[in-house]
């Protein structure tokens, strides 16, 4: 899985590409937690090019969201494909996590 990073208006944007599973979730975990410990308080994770997520991927998303909240920061998730959204909903996280449809909706929050 590729993770493309960019910073826009002091917001760290991570665009995921490929598959987020047991093999690749650690990479994302390290990236997000590094940013959080570096003091990043505004993050967006763009799922547009992610075509698969397993429960390990969801785990990472969940713990990252909890971690940034503890630091009084905010993370938004956007642009999920149907399958990915479905998995979040099955996991009961559809309404618990800040998921929005489009990047603009995510940017607006900040």
């Amino acid at each position, binding site marked *: 899985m590729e993770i493309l990073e960019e910073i826009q208006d002091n917001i760290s944007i991570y665009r995921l590409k490929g598959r987020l599973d*047991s*093999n690749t979730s650690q990479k994302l975990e390290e990236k997000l937690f590094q940013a959080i410990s570096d003091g990043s308080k505004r993050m967006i994770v763009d799922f547009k090019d992610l075509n*698969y*997520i*397993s*429960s390990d991927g969801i785990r990472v998303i969940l*713990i990252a969201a*909890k971690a940034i909240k503890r630091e009084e920061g905010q993370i938004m998730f956007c642009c999920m494909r149907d*399958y990915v959204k479905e998995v979040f909903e099955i996991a*009961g996280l559809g309404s618990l996590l800040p998921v929005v449809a489009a990047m603009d909706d995510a940017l607006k929050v900040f």
Partner: protein
Amino acid sequence: MIDSGIEQLRSMKFMVAQEYKFELKNDLSELKALNQHLNNWAEDINLPAISISRINICLDELFTNIVSYGFEDDLEHIIKFTLNADDNLLTINIEDDGIPFNPLEKIDPDFPDNVKSAIIGGLGIHIIKKLMDNVHYERKLGNKLTMKKNIQDKGGRRDSN
């Protein structure tokens, strides 16, 4: 006589189950191969992308649990998969020769008493139980996990939502 023969052949198409078997080593790097095999089978039986993804997430989770917690030695073990499509019913078996271990009851060993982590650990299992119609574990000579999923309307539409 020829007609009844053809009728018999036609009805046999739905009686003969299509089975796809493969083996993986107990190593998480095999997840890629797992996905590949699943895609091969899915192509054989014309399974739509959404079904493939749903089954993939279940197999991912189970395979990962078995690899992570099912063996107590450092040796290489083989985990056997049988994917079966019999008309509307998909049956998937995962067998291994590890310690008695039910991957549906995995508890994160790092945080057995931590409620928050228990919830995270159980997430994958919860997802499997939601996505599959039936999941069953048994222990005979080894561990055997069986999952079943009924996909609608094999003749026409198929699990298209």
